[in-house]
């Protein structure tokens, strides 16, 4: 496909269904969008020691993240330069001083560079040194460790990290600052939840504030109903505290506000959010005051953003220290990974709430998850209908929107979805030929 094919798929407030259903479009996303963008890879607390590694994917590319001998985090394509074998396939482990391919024992330093080949003399006078294989595993050059969060851009050219994310990093900062030590640690394994729908439906949903009171009436509404009936006086149980806000009225979501940034990033909960009224963890504020001083502590904890979308495929919740990665598998298949973090130096009660939130909202066994997956998959099959070819994202659309990428809106706007698709077009076509 060429630039024109892509641009034809978008209108200011409508998206052609092929964007969600076409295998060809998906292939272009892997080839362009996911290489021109900065993609979240993992957290450096997953590989604390030299030789630790973590293997994952960026789009459809298998990559390997390792803690190098110089203690920096290195990223390389997980592919042996000899015959293509994935050097490790365990998601995590420690490889010691070097990686060793299990097929013929070629070995590589933890930055991927070639260390040794058995019977090396077999390559003398063969021109081997001129082959691409002689360099070792191909490194990914553009890697950024932002306060522990590892991002990478596969293509050499493109926006640099700060330019790409701009003001949106403030949400990551707030999540990290909530640790008195300014440090997060990944806890446990991520929830892995397979969806038979396009990855973008999930990303759009993160700032879709008009669906909770409808789609989640069955889950949050039932909790509310049961709590109203059975609820004793005094403090709500943690689970109730977490789920009830999903049933807030439209006014609540209108009032929370939505902010957009350049390059498709944005967040809900500018003024308040469903996380604002969680009960306080004893001792936490004191720890924060000690670390930051009272004013700054209030500032940090006063910021209760709901969902922050990092274009193209990640979402974080600062106040609950969770991160969701929407991994594209196929045009109609998406793997959602839901990670949680410990606020180093903060009370366990916060981690307990984070873990509870994760299983109550993000698990394949979660009733809230059931509500959402049902919508996505109904949409994926509904879009096969030729009765209408366009998806509508027109709510609170303003003509000059595109001119002010950084802006704040009424919380029920679909502006952030439109913001995402403007970025989608930008990073799809930037490495495309004009015609093909």
């Amino acid at each position, binding site marked *: 496909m060429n630039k024109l094919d892509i641009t034809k798929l978008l209108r200011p407030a409508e998206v052609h269904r092929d964007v969600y259903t076409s295998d060809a479009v998906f292939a272009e996303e892997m080839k362009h969008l996911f290489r021109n963008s900065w993609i979240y890879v993992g957290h450096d607390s997953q590989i604390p020691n030299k030789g630790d590694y973590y293997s994952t994917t960026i789009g459809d590319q298998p990559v390997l993240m390792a803690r190098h001998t110089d203690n920096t985090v290195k990223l390389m394509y997980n592919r042996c330069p000899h015959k293509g074998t994935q050097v490790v396939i365990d998601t995590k482990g420690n490889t010691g001083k070097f990686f060793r391919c299990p097929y013929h024992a070629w070995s590589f330093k933890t930055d991927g560079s070639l260390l040794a080949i058995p019977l090396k003399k077999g390559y003398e006078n063969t021109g081997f040194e001129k082959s691409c294989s002689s360099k070792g595993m191909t490194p990914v050059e553009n890697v950024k460790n932002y306060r522990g969060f590892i991002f990478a851009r596969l293509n050499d050219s493109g926006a640099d990290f700060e330019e790409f994310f701009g003001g949106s990093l403030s949400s990551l900062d707030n999540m990290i600052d909530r640790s008195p030590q300014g440090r997060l640690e990944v806890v446990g394994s991520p929830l892995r939840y397979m969806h038979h729908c396009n990855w973008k439906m999930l990303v759009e949903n993160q700032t879709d504030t008009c669906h909770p009171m409808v789609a989640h009436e069955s889950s949050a509404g039932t909790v509310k109903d049961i709590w109203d009936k059975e609820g004793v006086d005094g403090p709500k149980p943690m689970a109730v505290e977490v789920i009830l806000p999903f049933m807030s009225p439209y006014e609540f979501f209108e009032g929370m506000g939505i902010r957009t940034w350049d390059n498709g990033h944005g967040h809900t909960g500018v003024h308040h959010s469903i996380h604002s009224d969680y009960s306080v963890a004893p001792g936490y504020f004191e720890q924060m005051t000690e670390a930051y001083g009272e004013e700054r502590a209030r500032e940090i904890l006063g910021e209760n953003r709901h969902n922050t979308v990092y274009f193209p495929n990640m979402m974080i919740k600062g106040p609950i220290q969770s991160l969701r990665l929407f991994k594209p598998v196929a045009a109609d298949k998406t793997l959602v990974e839901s990670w949680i973090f410990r606020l180093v130096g903060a009370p366990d009660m916060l981690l307990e709430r984070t873990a509870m939130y994760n299983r109550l909202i993000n698990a394949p066994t979660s009733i809230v998850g*059931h509500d959402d997956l049902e919508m996505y998959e109904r949409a994926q099959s509904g879009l096969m209908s030729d009765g209408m070819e366009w998806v509508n994202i027109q709510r609170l659309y303003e003509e000059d929107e595109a001119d002010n990428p950084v802006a704040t809106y009424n919380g029920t706007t679909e502006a952030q979805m439109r913001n995402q698709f403007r970025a989608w077009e930008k990073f799809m076509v930037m490495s495309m030929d004009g015609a093909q």
Partner: protein
Amino acid sequence: MMKPTEKELADFIIAEARLIDERKFLDWLALFADDGIYWMPLEWDQEEEKLTTSLLYEDMLLLRTRVQRLEGERTFSQKPKSRCQHLLQAPQIDAIDHDANLYQTYTPFHYAETRFDEQVILAGWARHTLSVMEGELKIRKKRVDIVNCDAPHRNIQLFV
């Protein structure tokens, strides 16, 4: 019954699964003690209950919510409804402690859940901790480990 026999313990486990298959969810809830917990760990050999992610870790309030939701008018993920089936190996009695009023059982199972034309089969082990309360066996804790706990599952909507 003050001191359940091995047979009574096994029959209880078998009856529990049948109640789920027959969608008698309220009767099923009644098998739990007030402080009963239903736990599905996320990780293999998981020890930690609360400070890490689980697939499921629910008290009676949450379980009642699930059951009421399954019959709800606006429960779209249950239109149409899911169905499930349990197949149990004969439950093994791992511990009988009359003094502590604690009984442990171990039950390998396969679980089939279906909705529309899709069917998934989960294989695993159920570990029950039971006590006698007011003359009846109650579930203090039901721990369910599935062999592919860390696989990328789609919806699991009923009770394994």
